[in-house]
C-alpha cells in the first residue's frame, strides 16, 4: 500500500483527512503547516502531474485521435484516472426517465443521458482538481444570505464579509488571474492580488461587441492559472489544455500546489488506495478514526486520530456518514437532523452552439491562450429578477468557447456533399467559426433532491452504495429556457446561425442533475442543529471532533463554480480547528 512519505505511518495522528482534492488538499495544507500530525487517506492511486501529464501531445498521439470513450469520457488526455461517470466496481443507483426502478448508473455521455443523476468520480491523488475547469469565481453577498434576500432556500450561518479574507488568502496561495470590475454580487478581489488576465481572443472580443447592445456584460474571467510566476511555479506558456493537468504547475491542482508544501512540513503522511468505509466512534460518541479497505489486499484496516476531517466530495462524505451507524447514531453519524444527504444541489446547465460567418476565412493565428475562457458573462439581471420580472429566482453566468482549437474529430463542413480540394477549402473556411455558449446557473435546494444509502446494493469492497433522488423545480427549468433564449439572441446579434434548435421546452432545456459536476449541500451548515448537519466551522453539531470540508457544507450553490469557495471554506474551518486544538478545546 503506497505511503507518500519516506517513513512508516504513526500509530495515531492529530487529524485524519479523507480525500486529497480541493478540500482534502487545503485541509492538509493548513493543518500540517499548523504543526499538527496529519494522515490523509485517498481512495485512488498516487498521481504525479509533473511526470504523467501529456503536455504538447497532439490528437495524433492518442488512440482514436483523443476522442471520448466510456473508458475516458472526457477524452484520452483528460487527467482523470480510473473514473468518470462510472467507476468500475463502484456502482451508484439512479432512475431512468419513465421508470420507477432503481438501476446501476451506466451512462457515460452526460448530454444524452436519461439518468436522473450523473456522478463524476476519479480515483487518484488530487481528485478532480487535476482536470477541473480552473474557473475560480467568488460567491457574493447575496449568495450567502439568499433566503434573507428572496425568501427561498437556505441562508449560510455567516455573511460574505466573514469569508472575504479567506477568499483573499486562497487566491493569493493558488494564483488566480482576472480583474476587479465592481459589479453587483460579483465581488472584487483584494487590490493587487489578482494576476493580469491574458488578452482576449478575437471571437471573445467579437462576442463582447455584440453583447453590449443586448446589455450583457463580457468581462475577463477569473481562472486559477498563473500568468506570472508564483511561489516557484512557472507562468502559463499558452499551449496545451488545462484539463490534461499541468506538468509545469502553472494551473492549480491540489497535487502541485497544496500537497507538496504540506508534505514538506514533515507532518503529513498519505496512504493511497485506501477506500474509507465508515467513521469509528468511542462510547461517548466522539470520532476516533476510520475503517478503510486496503484496495491492494482487500482487507479492512483501522486508522485513528483525535479529529476526523471528511473531504471526500459532497456525496462521498455523506455516504461515509450514512454508513457509520451505531447504537448512538442509528441513522448514521451526525445525522440527528436527518439532513445528511439532503439538499443535494448541482448547477443548472444548458448550452447552445452557433456558427458565426464573421469568423469565417480568418487569417490563421494562434488562439490557444490559457486553454479556458479569457472572458465570460457574469449574471446581469439581479434587479429585474428581484422585481419578479423573470419568473425564476436566481441567476446564471455564461461560459463561452470556440475558436481555433487544436483539430480533432468533428470537422465542421456544412455542405454534406463536398469532397476533394473543395473539402479542404471548406474546412479551412469554417475553422474557428463556431462558438458554444454554456449557462451555469444557481439551483435552489429542495426536498426532492437527495442521496441515501441503497438498501441492497454494495460496491466491490462490500460498502453500501448511494442512490439518488432528483427533481428540478420551475426555478431551474425556466432559468434554463432563459439561457437558451439568451444564447439565441447573442448568436442572432452576431449574424450567426444556431446549430441545432434552441430548446424552449422547460422539461428539456436543462441537463440532468449532477452533469455539471458541482454536487454540494449534502452535509449543509447552518445556525441551528435541528436543521443542519454542521456549524459555521464545518464541525458536526453532534460530533465536534468531526468536520466536513468539501462541498457538503454549502447552504446554497450560487452560479459561481464551487471549487474556490470549497477551498476558502476549508481554509477557514481548518484554521479554526487548529486554533481550537491548540487551546485544548477539541
Amino acid at each position, binding site marked *: 500500500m503506497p505511503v507518500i512519505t519516506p517513513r512508516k505511518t504513526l500509530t495515531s495522528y492529530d487529524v485524519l483527512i479523507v480525500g486529497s482534492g480541493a478540500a482534502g488538499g487545503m485541509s492538509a495544507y493548513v493543518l500540517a503547516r499548523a504543526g499538527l500530525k496529519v494522515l490523509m487517506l485517498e481512495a485512488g492511486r498516487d498521481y504525479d502531474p509533473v511526470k504523467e501529464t501529456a503536455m504538447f501531445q497532439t490528437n495524433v498521439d492518442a488512440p482514436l485521435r483523443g476522442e471520448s470513450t466510456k473508458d*475516458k469520457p472526457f477524452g484520452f488526455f483528460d487527467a482523470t484516472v480510473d473514473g468518470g461517470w462510472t467507476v468500475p466496481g463502484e456502482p451508484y443507483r439512479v432512475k431512468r426517465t419513465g421508470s420507477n426502478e432503481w438501476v446501476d448508473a451506466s451512462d457515460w455521455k452526460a448530454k444524452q443521458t436519461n439518468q436522473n443523476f450523473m456522478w463524476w468520480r476519479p480515483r487518484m491523488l488530487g481528485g478532480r482538481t487535476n482536470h477541473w475547469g480552473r474557473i475560480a469565481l467568488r460567491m457574493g453577498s447575496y449568495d450567502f444570505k439568499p433566503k434573507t434576500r428572496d425568501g427561498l432556500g437556505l441562508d449560510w450561518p455567516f455573511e460574505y464579509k466573514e469569508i472575504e479574507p479567506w477568499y483573499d488568502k486562497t487566491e493569493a496561495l493558488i494564483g488566480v488571474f482576472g480583474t476587479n470590475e465592481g459589479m453587483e454580487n460579483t465581488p472584487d478581489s483584494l487590490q493587487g492580488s489578482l494576476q493580469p488576465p491574458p488578452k482576449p481572443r478575437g471571437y471573445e472580443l*467579437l462576442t463582447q461587441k455584440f453583447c453590449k447592445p443586448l446589455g450583457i456584460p463580457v468581462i475577463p474571467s477569473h481562472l486559477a492559472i498563473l500568468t506570472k510566476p508564483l511561489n516557484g511555479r512557472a507562468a502559463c506558456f*499558452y499551449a496545451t489544455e488545462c484539463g490534461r493537468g499541468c506538468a509545469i504547475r502553472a494551473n492549480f491542482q491540489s497535487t502541485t500546489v497544496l500537497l507538496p508544501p504540506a508534505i514538506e512540513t514533515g507532518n503529513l503522511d498519505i496512504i493511497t488506495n485506501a477506500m474509507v468505509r465508515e467513521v469509528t466512534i468511542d462510547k461517548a460518541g466522539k470520532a476516533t478514526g476510520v475503517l478503510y479497505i486496503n484496495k491492494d489486499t482487500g482487507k479492512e484496516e483501522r486508522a485513528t486520530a483525535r479529529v476526523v476531517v471528511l473531504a471526500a466530495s459532497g456525496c462521498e462524505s455523506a455516504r461515509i456518514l450514512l454508513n457509520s451507524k451505531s447504537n448512538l447514531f442509528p441513522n448514521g453519524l451526525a445525522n440527528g437532523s436527518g439532513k445528511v444527504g439532503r439538499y443535494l444541489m448541482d448547477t443548472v446547465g444548458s448550452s447552445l452552439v452557433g456558427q458565426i460567418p*464573421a469568423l469565417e476565412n480568418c487569417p490563421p493565428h494562434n488562439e490557444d491562450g490559457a486553454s479556458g475562457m479569457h472572458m465570460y458573462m457574469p449574471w446581469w439581471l439581479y434587479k429585474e429578477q428581484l422585481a419578479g420580472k423573470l419568473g425564476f429566482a436566481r441567476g446564471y453566468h455564461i461560459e463561452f468557447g470556440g475558436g481555433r482549437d*487544436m483539430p480533432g474529430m468533428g470537422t465542421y*463542413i456544412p455542405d454534406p456533399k463536398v469532397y476533394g480540394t473543395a473539402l*479542404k477549402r471548406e474546412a479551412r473556411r469554417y475553422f474557428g467559426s463556431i462558438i458554444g455558449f454554456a449557462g451555469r446557473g444557481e439551483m435552489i435546494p429542495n426536498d426532492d433532491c437527495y442521496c441515501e444509502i441503497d438498501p441492497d446494493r454494495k460496491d466491490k469492497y462490500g460498502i453500501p452504495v448511494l442512490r439518488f433522488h432528483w427533481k428540478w423545480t420551475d426555478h431551474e427549468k425556466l432559468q434554463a429556457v432563459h439561457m437558451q433564449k439568451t444564447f439565441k439572441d447573442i448568436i442572432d446579434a452576431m449574424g450567426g446561425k444556431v446549430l441545432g434548435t434552441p430548446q424552449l421546452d422547460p422539461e428539456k432545456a436543462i441537463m440532468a442533475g449532477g452533469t455539471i459536476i458541482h454536487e454540494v449541500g449534502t452535509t449543509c451548515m447552518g445556525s441551528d442543529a435541528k436543521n443542519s448537519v454542521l456549524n459555521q466551522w464545518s464541525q458536526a453539531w453532534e460530533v465536534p471532533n468531526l468536520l466536513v470540508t468539501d462541498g457538503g457544507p454549502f447552504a446554497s450553490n450560487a452560479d459561481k463554480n464551487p471549487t474556490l469557495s470549497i477551498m476558502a471554506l476549508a481554509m477557514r474551518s481548518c484554521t479554526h480547528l487548529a486554533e481550537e486544538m491548540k487551546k485544548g478545546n477539541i
Partner: protein
Amino acid sequence: MLTPAPLTRRDALRRVIGVSIALASMDLTSFGAAGGRGIGTDPNLLKKEIPWPRILSDAERKATTALADILLPADDLGPAASTLGVPDFIDEWVSAPYDAQEKDRGVIQTGLAWLDGEAKTRFGKVFADSSHEQQTALVDDITKDGTPAHQDAFGFFSLFRSLASGGYFSTPEGWAAIGYVGNKPLAEFPGPPPEVMKHLGLA
C-alpha cells in the same frame, strides 16, 4: 415464405444504417468492449498504444485508401490522405471495441463492399483499380440527389468523410491545411494580430 430472400447489397446497407440509427438513440454501454481490449481507465498518456488489432481486410484497406485520396487529394493545401496515415486511422477507428466505433464498423465495411461491387458492375474493376475519372464519377453519383448510388451509399459517404477529415486535419500537415498554428509555447499571449482585428471589423 419460409425461406427469406437473400439480402441484396442495398438491403444490407440499409439494414446496417437502420440499426445504427436505432443504436444511436440508445445508450447501450453493455454492448461495449465486445471484441478485444480497450484503452482502459488508466492508460499511459505519454505513449500511444492501440491495444486492439486492426480488422479491415486487404481489399477493404485498398478501397479505403483509394476513397480517402479522392476525398482528400494532394493539392496546394497539402498531401494526399494516404500519405498521412488516414486509411490506417480509419482501420484503427472501426476496429475499436467500443459501441460507437462498432456501429461505424458495420457502416464502413458494408459501404466499402458496396463501393467495390458497384465499381465492378460499372467498370469491371474494384474501386481502387478503377481510373481516377471512374472513381470520381462514382463518388459524384453518391453525392447527387436522385441517383440510386446516392440512395444506397450517402450515409456511408458521410461517415467516411467525417472519419477521413478528422484523421487528416489532426496531423501536422492537416493543421497547415486547415490553418491551425497553435500548440507552441509563448512567453506572452499576444491576442489577435492586426489583420485579424481588421477581418473581424474590430480594428
